[in-house]
């Protein structure tokens, strides 16, 4: 029977409980948001006694379902003050699931400040060890040590916070190990690393040696489903082997969004970056080919991934500089800062990984700081210096490490592209109105993964701008619901590229869930479950003090036209309120 593992950091105890019936069919975001809603007071201080961190694999994670190596982490966010779920691609969740752990709940706050602990989970139970030796090290040194100390070779994965989380910075993410044991996979957004830091939890090691396969309610149905999904993934031009993502990684989007005129440049001043091609997925592929003398296709972040979009950027001496350089990171640390040198962007990415930081929020903070005069746009060397200040916690570093909004306040910058305290990601809403509606109305601040409506304005064949109508609100709502469901299955969101084109693939996901759980869901249930999750999250936020007034974009975007389209943000408040139905 699956269990919940409760880790109490005040008492330093770890205990296993039966999963209450109401959570029986839940996984991933559905489970983290449910537990946070049920157990965390929405008005609590995010770094205080009452906040909790929930770690949950998805519904099908840990089975043979393709591309299902995702884990969700939830809490009240210290960055936004809303409920938060952040999602990472790693074997960590798969190992939890195989050990029969449906969720970990980290609760309580130790009286002793500044001491950190490790937790080790095996088939025999959970235990604590002091983390003193890891403090003050970068994660690339600390995590391999921790793995060696507490994990058996080939069986262990690590969740860890870096010095940013130890210093309670609101841009602190949670790192996870990839298949090489590097701390390169991230549940990056929302400052969840700081919440773990406030509880003195440095890392969790999960070792699934000796664990049996997951039990399935209906193996035949499950197998039918996973085959349908695998077929869709291997057929679709984007997700298939040597398709877009396997060849160019997510950074293939740099050139596409740049052409669409929506690539936010130099703190959202422009929608096209003259250096875009130099930091795009094509450039990464070409640069690796030049330096390695051979074509390098991307690799999987977790066992069973068919898409394999994770890249590794190499130095001229053929050593790995950083993995993985995602679209969002290449944008945040590149175009948004006016930096067009891949080696510099790679170094900034690597430093974020080493210090335990969200690349998007840090890129945003750096860009706001550049606008505020702390550095010139494009000054890569200075950006690297500032990243080290963040890791070391100097006063300027602490400002930047707490994100774009804090940085804007301190440096007198009004143009901060944030919603509910979180910096926007790599799509300017003035050019791509659909994603703007998501930024405004998502339950977690400006978030591109809440509902990936990155289809640009339907300008139609005639070239006339289609008038905005209720349909856009419907689309924004539907996308958020479907996404919330997918975030709960444990599948990577990138399967959406395939399953939204190939209906059979979507049916396969439903079959898999029914095969694992013994439920009888249909595609309608996927929408219903997604709606329940979003409504639950919105209720939490309401109780935390959020109103419709917070579902808005920053004021400057209403007045400042964004080249090349010279568009402003002109969606009305009532259109935004229609998304979640008012």
């Amino acid at each position, binding site marked *: 029977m699956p269990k919940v593992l409760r880790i109490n950091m005040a008492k330093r105890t770890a205990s296993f409980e039966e999963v209450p019936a109401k959570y029986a069919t839940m996984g991933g975001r559905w489970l983290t948001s449910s537990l946070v809603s049920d157990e965390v007071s929405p008005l609590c201080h995010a770094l205080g006694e009452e906040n909790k961190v929930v770690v949950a694999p998805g519904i099908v994670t840990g089975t043979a379902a393709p591309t299902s190596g995702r884990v969700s982490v939830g809490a009240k966010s210290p960055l936004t003050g809303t409920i938060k779920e952040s999602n990472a691609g790693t074997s960590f969740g798969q190992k939890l699931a195989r050990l029969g752990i449906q969720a970990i709940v980290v609760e309580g706050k130790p009286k002793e400040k500044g001491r950190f602990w490790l937790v080790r989970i095996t088939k025999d139970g959970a235990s604590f060890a002091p983390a003193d030796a890891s403090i003050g090290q970068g994660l690339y040194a600390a995590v391999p040590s921790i793995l060696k100390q507490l994990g058996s070779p080939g069986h262990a994965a690590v969740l860890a916070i870096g010095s940013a989380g130890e210093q309670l910075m609101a841009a602190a993410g949670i790192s996870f190990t990839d298949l090489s044991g590097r701390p390169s996979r991230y549940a990056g957004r929302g400052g969840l690393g700081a919440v773990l830091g406030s509880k003195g939890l440095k890392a969790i090691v999960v070792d699934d040696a000796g664990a049996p396969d997951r039990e399935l309610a209906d193996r035949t149905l499950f197998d039918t489903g996973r085959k349908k999904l695998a077929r869709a993934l291997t057929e679709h*031009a*984007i997700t298939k082997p040597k*398709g*877009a993502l396997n*060849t*160019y990684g997510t950074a*293939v*989007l740099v*050139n*596409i969004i740049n*052409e*669409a*005129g*929506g690539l936010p440049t130099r703190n959202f001043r422009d*929608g096209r970056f003259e250096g875009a*091609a*130099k930091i*795009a997925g*094509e*450039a990464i*592929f*070409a*640069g690796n080919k030049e330096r390695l003398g051979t074509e390098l296709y991307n690799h999987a972040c977790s066992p069973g991934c068919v898409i394999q979009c994770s890249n590794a950027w190499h130095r001229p001496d053929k050593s790995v500089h950083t993995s993985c350089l995602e679209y969002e990171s290449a944008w945040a640390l590149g175009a948004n800062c006016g930096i067009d040198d891949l080696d510099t962007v790679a170094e900034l990415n690597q430093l974020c990984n080493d210090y335990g930081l969200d690349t998007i929020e840090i890129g945003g903070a750096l860009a706001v700081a550049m606008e505020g005069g702390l550095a010139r746009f494009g000054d890569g060397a200075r950006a690297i210096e500032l990243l080290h200040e963040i890791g070391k916690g100097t006063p300027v570093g602490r400002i930047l490490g707490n994100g774009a909004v804090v940085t804007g306040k301190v440096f007198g910058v009004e143009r901060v592209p944030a919603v509910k305290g979180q910096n926007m990601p790599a799509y300017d809403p003035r*050019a791509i109105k659909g994603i703007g509606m998501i930024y405004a109305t998502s339950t977690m601040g400006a978030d591109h993964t809440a509902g990936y409506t*990155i*289809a*640009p*304005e*339907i*300008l*139609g*064949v*005639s*070239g006339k701008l*289609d008038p905005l*109508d209720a*349909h856009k609100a419907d*689309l924004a709502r539907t996308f958020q619901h479907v996404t919330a469901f997918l975030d709960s299955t444990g599948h990577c969101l990138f399967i959406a*590229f395939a399953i*939204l*084109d*190939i209906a059979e693939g979507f049916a396969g996901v439903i079959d898999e869930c029914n095969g694992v759980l013994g439920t009888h869901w249909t595609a309608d249930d996927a929408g219903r479950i997604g709606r329940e999750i979003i409504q639950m999250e919105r209720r939490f936020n309401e109780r935390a003090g959020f109103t419709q007034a917070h579902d808005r974009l920053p004021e400057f975007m209403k007045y400042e036209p964004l080249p*090349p*389209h010279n568009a402003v943000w002109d969606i009305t408040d009532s259109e935004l309120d229609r998304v979640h139905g008012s």
Partner: protein
Amino acid sequence: MVEVHLYGSLRRFASDQDPRRESIVRMPVSDTDTIASVVGRIGVPQQELSANVFLNGEYSTLSRRVKAADRLALFPQDMGLLYSWHFDRVAGPHPTCTIELRLYAGLEHYAQETESGSAVPCTLPKGAVAADLLHRLAIPAEAVQLVFVNGVSQQLDCPMQDGDRVALFPPVGGG
């Protein structure tokens, strides 16, 4: 002149093919040119295109007119990340048209697992033409000999209306 930006495997049609730079072809255009005709003149096969075709940063179908000083961007099949089905998901008052498409004599395999002669519903943006149906299903123009729209033989530039029944046949011989 239209400035055509080429990406991925399509860079081979430009003189500067370095993926770290811009691969641009400059094409003179006239009043009657469309994206499709410019693409044809450059020599890019239509089936190599994804749906991610941008005219001045606007997501466009191939039948759209082009004019001097326009910027056209072409992404190949393996780079069409922006949802091409966005047009399909639009319902209600939005300007699209729904076509009933039937494929015959070997063309069926372009629409997954459809039996010969069974109807495939397709949604296109208003103002689309028959050629856009081919583009949507990645059917090369030379694979289609006959286009029937509501029972009448038409050319590929025939405009599509909501509710049209379209049938496509390959070159067929007979005796």
